[in-house]
C-alpha cells in the first residue's frame, strides 16, 4: 500500500513536470532571424489587420504587445510609440498594438490616447502563443499577454525582440540602421 502511494506520487510528479515543460515549449520562443508568424486580427480600424496583406513587403512593423487597455504601463508603452510615430513614418515603419481586449474597449483606448496607429484584438490566445507572449509564467499564470516589442523588417523577418518597457531610443537607432540596410531595396 505504501509502495503504491509512492509510485502514484512519482507518476503524478512526472506528469506534472512534463506538462510544465510542454507549456514552456509551447510559449517559446520566437527568435530574431525567424520568419514573421503573420496574423489576422480584428482591429480598431473597423477591418481586420492582416500582416501579409497590410505590412509585408511594404513597411517594417513594430508589434507592441501589451497586457490590457488602460493599464498604466501599457498606456505608457503605446503613448511612447505615438510620440515617435512621426520618426517611425520617416523610417518606413508602422506600429500595431496587440492585446486581448475586445475591439470596443480598444477603440475607447485609442480615442482616449489619440493614437494614430491601430490596436489589434487577439481575443483568442493563438497570436500570443506564436509571438511568445502567452501564457505568462510569472508572477502567476495569466490570461493576459506579457509586454513585448517585436520588430519585423519589410522582408518579414523577426529582427528585434524585447520584453517589458520599450526602449524608444534603442528602437529608433535600430530602425535607422534597418532602413539604411534596406535603402534602395
Amino acid at each position: 500500500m505504501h509502495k503504491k502511494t509512492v509510485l502514484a506520487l512519482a507518476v503524478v510528479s512526472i506528469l506534472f513536470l512534463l506538462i510544465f515543460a510542454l507549456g514552456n515549449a509551447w510559449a517559446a520562443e520566437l527568435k530574431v532571424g525567424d520568419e514573421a508568424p503573420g496574423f489576422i486580427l480584428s482591429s480598431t480600424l473597423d477591418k481586420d489587420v492582416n500582416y501579409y496583406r497590410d505590412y509585408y513587403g511594404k513597411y517594417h512593423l513594430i508589434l507592441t504587445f501589451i497586457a490590457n487597455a488602460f493599464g498604466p504601463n501599457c498606456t505608457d508603452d503605446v503613448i511612447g510609440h505615438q510620440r515617435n510615430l512621426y520618426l517611425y513614418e520617416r523610417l518606413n515603419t508602422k506600429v500595431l498594438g496587440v492585446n486581448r481586449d475586445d475591439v470596443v474597449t480598444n477603440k475607447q483606448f485609442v480615442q482616449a490616447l489619440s493614437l494614430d496607429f491601430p490596436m489589434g484584438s487577439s481575443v483568442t490566445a493563438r497570436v500570443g502563443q506564436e509571438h511568445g507572449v502567452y501564457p505568462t509564467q510569472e508572477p502567476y499564470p495569466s490570461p493576459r499577454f506579457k509586454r513585448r516589442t517585436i520588430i519585423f523588417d519589410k522582408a518579414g523577418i523577426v529582427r528585434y525582440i524585447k520584453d517589458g518597457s520599450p526602449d524608444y531610443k534603442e528602437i529608433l537607432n535600430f530602425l535607422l540602421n534597418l532602413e539604411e540596410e534596406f535603402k534602395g531595396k
Partner: protein
Amino acid sequence: MKSKTASKWILGIFMLAMIGFSLGGCATTGEKLKSALTATDRGTVLYEDKYEFKPPPQGWSMMRNLTGGDFEFGFLKLEKGEFPSQTTMFYDEEPFGSSRDLETRAKQYSTFFLVGRGISMEIKKMEKGEVAGRPALAVHMEGENPYRNEKAKSTVYFFKTGEYVVTLACTQWRPMNGTWDLELFNIFEGFAKSFKFLKSTFYEEMEQKIKKLKG
C-alpha cells in the same frame, strides 16, 4: 563553548564586512551623483556635458534617473508640514501625452499627469514664453484629491528639441489645508530661464540622421 565563541567571532567579522561593503557602496553612489554637476564661474552648473542651468539653493536633493523612464534629472525639496509637503522640478524627455502641438500636448499632459494619484489637473493659465532659446508654452495647473487629503500645483514649460516636445516642470504637493510656497516656484523660474542645451539632443540628431539617410 569554544565553538560558540568562534561562531560569534565569525558572525561579527561577517557583519563588519557587510557594513563595510554597504558603506563602500554608498560612497560610490555619492561620488557618482556628485560628479554629475560641475560648477561654472557664471553661477550655473553643468549636468554631465549636456545641460547648463542655475541650480536650486541648498536644501534641494538631486534626483537622477539612471535606468530611463519618466524624467532625466531633477530636484526635490521635502518641506516641513503634514504629508504631502514637497516640491519637485525636473527636465523630462518623455512628458505625458504625445501631440507635437504645444497647446494640445499641455491638455493631454494635464489629463494624464497625476491621474494615478486621483488628481485631475485643471489648466489655470497658458502663456507664451521662451526656454533654452526656443519658443515655449508656460502652463499653470492645479488639482486636488480631497479623499486623499492632497492637492498639487504645477508650472510646466513645453518646448521643442527639433520637432520633439520636452518639458521643464515644477510641482508642489500639499495637504488640502496647506498653503502654497510661491518662492519655490521663483527658484524654478531661475532654473528654467537659465536652462541651456550644451549639445544637440538625441531627437535633434535622429531627425538630422533621417534627413541625411533620405537625401
